[in-house]
């Protein structure tokens, strides 16, 4: 027995050694497997991975954690090391129109509906009334937006409440029947915003946000309050200080964070920059003196004049190579779209290109599809619910579970990643010193929050009211005669029919 036992032990030992060697070979090929195979030190293994590999480690662990409690613990530990945890879906799913409205508020833009699709996308009431103006111009007070069920869905957001006056002005100017407000669908309102804000018919993406967008405001405020700390964190990652200074400056001034549009400027004068500035002073003087200059917009003229003053001042100060470039000169050059004058270059003369450096994205800490669990869906676009994340971490790690599934499948969203610290506002890596917290509201209710909550409504209730309004309009115009009960019944049947039609279409296409 003793002989058999030792043979067994030796065999087992050899198998164990072989397995270990095999695992190490696999780790060399796929570094993320270190997190899966090692029983100790796997957090350090995780920190040493690239973002893409860390994503694979997370995905594999999440898969095995379903059947293996040890892996489930490991997953929790690994995620906690990155300041994250798994959160289950909570609350009602939003209607797609609500998601689209949150999207419009976030980006401050609306896409134009293609001409050929207007009939399909817009209601017949809207199409009829918008193209058949009244003979007499209605008074402003006749346009009561508060009675419009669809507008109530938009007015939950500050950005839309701000443009109500623009929409009213458009309707008055074009003598549109005030009844239109009670009959318009949310899609019709999107089109009205496009019609009111478009500069020309070729514009495809219309910017309606007259002020700074919610996401840009968040980034601007964060950079203004924590810019130095953010810069230090980026510098610790070994990034070029000129990129870091230019990126933080762009965030600080405009709340922008896309590296593809970043102009990276020198921080210190170089002989090349000094000679460019000398040439630029003469060229700008000629430009400002020319007749064409008066044809520019006042804003553009002022920017060029400011830049001219800054360049003249810099040239007069006789800076030498190595001296720090005044921030006012950098800002004036960027504002006047002449950042190229100060372009940062490598030693061989090649300019630094923004796309070679990390970009950022604004992440919704509270999942948009879970916004139904909030007191008001508009809260999902609040600064306290945003986090500025390096784009690769955002897509390859935090949103790792987002999936495109077979067409026609029902909603299947089950879980997502959430920050352990709800105040996490900036994340550039998985290590603790690569994320930063900031409490935007310090637990105080903001004026905007109070106003938003006053406009809180239910989507279902608004759509029910819209159906009733449309039926009443039909009745008034002798198209159809229904009593109120039938109106409601019609609305319910319409939804059932629409659903059945959709299902049959899907079945048919399969």
């Amino acid at each position, binding site marked *: 027995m003793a002989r058999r036992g030792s043979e067994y032990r030796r065999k087992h030992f050899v198998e164990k050694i072989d397995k270990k060697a095999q695992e190490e070979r696999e780790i060399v090929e796929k570094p993320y497997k270190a997190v899966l195979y090692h029983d100790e030190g796997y957090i350090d293994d995780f920190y040493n991975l690239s973002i893409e590999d860390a994503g694979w480690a997370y995905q594999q662990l999440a898969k095995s954690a379903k059947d293996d409690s040890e892996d489930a613990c490991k997953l929790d530990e690994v995620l906690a090391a990155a300041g994250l945890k798994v959160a289950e879906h909570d609350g009602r799913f939003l209607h797609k129109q609500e998601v689209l409205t949150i999207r419009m508020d*976030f980006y401050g833009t609306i*896409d134009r509906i293609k001409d050929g699709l207007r009939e399909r996308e817009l209601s017949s009431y809207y199409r009829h009334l918008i193209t058949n103006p009244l003979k007499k111009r209605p008074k402003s007070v006749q346009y009561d937006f508060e009675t419009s069920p669809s507008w109530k869905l938009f007015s939950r957001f500050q950005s839309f409440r701000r443009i109500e006056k623009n929409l009213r002005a458009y309707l008055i100017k074009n003598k549109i029947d005030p009844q239109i407000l009670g009959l318009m669908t949310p899609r019709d309102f999107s089109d009205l915003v496009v019609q009111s804000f478009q500069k020309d018919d070729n514009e*495809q993406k219309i910017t309606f946000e007259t002020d700074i967008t919610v996401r840009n405001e968040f980034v601007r405020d964060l950079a203004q309050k924590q810019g130095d700390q953010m810069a230090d964190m980026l510098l610790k990652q070994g990034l070029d200080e000129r990129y870091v200074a230019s990126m933080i400056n762009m965030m600080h001034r405009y709340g922008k964070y*896309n590296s593809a549009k970043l102009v990276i400027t020198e921080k210190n004068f170089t002989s090349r920059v000094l000679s460019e500035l000398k040439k630029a002073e003469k060229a700008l003087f000629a430009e400002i003196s020319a007749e064409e200059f008066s044809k520019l917009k006042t804003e553009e003229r002022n920017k060029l004049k400011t830049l001219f003053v800054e360049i003249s001042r810099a040239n007069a100060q006789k800076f030498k190579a190595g001296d720090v470039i005044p921030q006012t000169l950098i800002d004036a050059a960027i504002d006047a779209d002449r950042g190229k004058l100060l372009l940062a270059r490598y030693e061989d003369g090649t300019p630094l290109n923004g796309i070679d450096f990390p970009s950022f994205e604004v992440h919704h800490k509270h999942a948009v*599809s879970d916004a139904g669990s909030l007191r008001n869906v508009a809260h999902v676009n609040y600064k306290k619910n945003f986090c500025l994340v390096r*784009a690769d971490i955002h897509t390859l790690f935090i949103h790792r579970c987002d999936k*495109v599934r*077979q067409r026609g499948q029902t909603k299947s*969203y089950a879980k997502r990643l959430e920050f352990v610290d709800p105040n996490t506002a900036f994340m550039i890596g998985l290590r603790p010193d690569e994320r930063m917290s900031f409490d935007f509201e310090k637990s105080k209710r903001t004026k905007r929050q109070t106003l938003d909550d006053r406009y809180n409504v239910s989507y279902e209730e608004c759509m029910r009211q819209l159906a009733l309004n449309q039926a009443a309009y039909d009745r008034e115009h002798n198209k159809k005669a229904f009593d109120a009960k039938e109106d409601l019944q019609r609305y319910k049947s319409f939804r059932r029919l629409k659903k059945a039609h959709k299902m049959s279409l899907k079945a048919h*296409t399969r």
Partner: protein
Amino acid sequence: MMDFVQILKENGYIPQNTPFTKKDVIESQKELVKKGYPFLPLEFIGFLKSYNGLRGEDSAVLGIAPKDKSLDIIVFNEIHNESDDMVILGYDEFCFLVYDEQQKDYLLVDRETGDELESFSADGLPEALNSILHY
């Protein structure tokens, strides 16, 4: 499509000079099919000739072996695509832009729920790209 490329140029996005070779395209198409995804539509490949992997504001269009590895269309689909008749072409904070080979149309699909948010016809790639890319 040229109009859309022009819009991007006007908005400060500089097109690439040598985005990829024909061989890259063939290899990527093969790789996609091997992984169970459909071929990329030709019009989309045409767009990639100007912008192969492009980052907008909180949005991006994927590319064939692009400089920014996190925009690689094959890796991205491997991570986020569980369908076999659609291929992801881009994304924003809310949705994926996908091409459905069976229906020959482009869709905006909710990233979190898989819901279809918008659809564009077979010739609607410029509108679809315009919708997903925030510039």
